[in-house]
């Protein structure tokens, strides 16, 4: 990553793991490219990371297509129940939910896409439609809480690393305590407490069933995982000559922090943001699975699994498909994040599998 202000010095050509320095552009000197361009080229050479980035985009497209599938194929909504309806497949009539309360199994394309994955429970909701809409909520919570966590973590890291002294002591100790807590337990405690009563702080008002409750809970408890490494980097950066030069030119603390140091954190922030989304999605799924996250009638992949395991013996796909979706999304984000780290910071020793690498992204994972 571009710690030094001069781009040429920042990124040495090629890096460990980048393989033999393939001449990606003939006839042009490498130093003509910006560090971002070089990093981009390096990322493209990482086949696995590119493949998983494509997979992630496919998942996003799949989720974005939810309304299309719901309106034009399944003709139902994610929370719409079909307790007494019957399905005409060929000449056959099938009940969506039998008298005993057993939901219909996967129909694949037999019923023109209706109940593609079957019905979810005795309520007879279309599992495929719920999978798509639930995934939107899961991903939304992951991304929004990732944005909040990263923003707060960067601000805290900058303040602690730049001012040092008692500011640093207070922030760093608080993060240490938060980091050592059993986050899942505290997430459950806060999630349930808020789900029962909602939240009201000044202008901020949340009802108990809002998806912003899990977002709030997840954002708070994952801050240390991002803020601690950022603080460490700010500590190192604020020793550099360019910071000294900025101060000598009369730049105030705000300008030094946000105009001088912050741009140098860009690559770290991008990597941690990616990994943080994955981590937060796992956290959300765990909370929702236990009933302390997304509340009905909304659904997420986590709540779908908790409904699905009730019918594990007869309809195993109800629990397994949302689980596989979570795994694919999280896996692709983790591998892309790792690839970004390699591409943006070829000198970094922090790799997935190296101690610090996994420890940092493991975080609150379940």
């Amino acid at each position: 990553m571009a710690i030094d202000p001069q781009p040429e010095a920042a990124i040495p050509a090629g890096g460990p793991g980048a393989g033999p320095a393939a001449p990606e552009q003939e006839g042009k000197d490498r130093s003509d490219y910006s560090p971002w361009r070089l990093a981009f080229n390096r990322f493209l050479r990482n086949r696995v990371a590119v493949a998983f980035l494509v997979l992630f985009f496919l998942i996003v497209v799949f989720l974005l297509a939810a309304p299309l599938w719901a309106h034009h194929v399944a003709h139902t909504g994610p929370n719409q129940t079909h307790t007494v309806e019957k399905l005409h497949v060929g000449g056959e009539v099938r009940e969506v939910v039998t008298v005993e309360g057993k939901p219909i199994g996967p129909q694949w394309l037999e019923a023109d896409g209706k109940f593609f994955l079957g019905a979810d429970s005795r309520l007879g909701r279309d599992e495929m439609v719920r999978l798509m809409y639930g995934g939107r909520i899961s991903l939304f919570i992951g991304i929004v809480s990732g944005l909040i966590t990263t923003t707060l973590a960067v601000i805290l890291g900058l303040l602690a690393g730049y001012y040092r002294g008692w500011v640093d002591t207070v922030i760093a100790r608080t993060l240490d305590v938060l980091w050592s807590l059993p986050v899942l337990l505290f997430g459950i405690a806060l999630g349930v407490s808020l789900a029962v009563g909602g939240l009201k702080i000044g202008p901020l008002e949340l009802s108990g069933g809002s998806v912003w409750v899990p977002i709030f809970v997840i954002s708070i408890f994952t801050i240390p995982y991002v803020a601690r490494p950022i603080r460490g980097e700010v500590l190192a950066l604020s020793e550099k000559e360019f910071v000294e030069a900025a101060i000598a030119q009369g730049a105030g603390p705000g300008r030094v922090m946000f105009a001088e140091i912050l741009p140098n954190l860009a690559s770290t922030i991008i990597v941690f943001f990616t990994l943080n989304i994955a981590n937060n999605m796992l956290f959300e799924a765990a909370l929702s699975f236990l009933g302390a996250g997304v509340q009905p009638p909304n659904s997420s992949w986590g709540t779908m699994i908790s409904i699905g395991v009730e019918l594990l013996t007869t309809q195993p796909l109800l629990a397994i498909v949302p689980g596989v979706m979570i795994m694919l999304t999280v896996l692709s984000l983790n591998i892309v994040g790792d690839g970004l780290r390699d591409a943006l910071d070829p000198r970094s020793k922090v790799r997935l599998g190296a101690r610090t690498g996994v420890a940092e992204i493991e975080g609150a994972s379940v």
Partner: protein
Amino acid sequence: MLRFVIRRLIGMVFVLFVVSILVFLIFNVIPNSPPAQRLAGKNATPVLVKSIEEEWGFDESLPVQYVTMMKNVFTGELTSYSPRIPVNDQIQEGIPATFSLSIGAGIIWLSFGLLLGYLAATRAGGWLDRALTGVAIAGISIPVFLLAPVLIYFLTYKLEIFPNGGYVKLTEDPWEWFTHLILPWFTLAVLSIGFYSRVLRSNMLDVMNEDYVRTARAKGLSEGRVMTRHVLRNSLIPIVTLFGLDFGATIAGTAIITEVLYGITGVGYYAAHAISNFELPPIMGVTLYGAFFVVFINTLVDIAYAYLDPRVRLGASAQ
């Protein structure tokens, strides 16, 4: 060493205090609905809410309320209100199951992780090494609530290798206890095996470059002896810390989901049941005890670490 231990213990008391304040904030202070209403549960009568309000002193000042809460939890007076059951009794009842699950899983992931990590380090770059990297990446991405349903469906229902969920007390029938716990143990452990093997591998590769390893080789020690006595021993120190932290986190967290999926009636199962009924007193109790347990374990780990590695305690007292 004594100075270090005392410093750590003082630190622990401080963190315990902060943790209890945090729990207090979550349940009593955060301004949402009236706390008595929340504690009483969904179907509370006004009479019950009124009596809870008096019992917990919600009209008193915050410090008084805090003391009341701590007193309620630690004297065993904390009860769930529908039906009235003391929380501490329920937690105590669940502890053997939770510990059976977590300790067994810990033993499995530690022994397999170390064995595979050692093999990977001594054959760095080989197929085992690469396979373990893959397992480690998958391990942080596969959620327990995918792994467990897959294992239960295929191994329990389809192939009928393992008994169908539940927990059998060790004192009742040791063999049944064991067979009922095999799948849960592996569910909890599998994902950590890859991770621990990676950690040990990278530690060992670091240590192999140390001067004293070269010295050991130069004085003619066999390769096996260099690896076990010099490299492995020094690589294990960070693992102790990691294991302590993970073990605490497993008991007070990760085990909850595994317990629910396999129907193991431990503390986590009890907590999850309370969540689905939105009963707050059990969650308050479990959170407070769980967090205290984790802080306590972390302190023990710090002390063990300082004992194993003199550099830590000397560095700490020099500050």
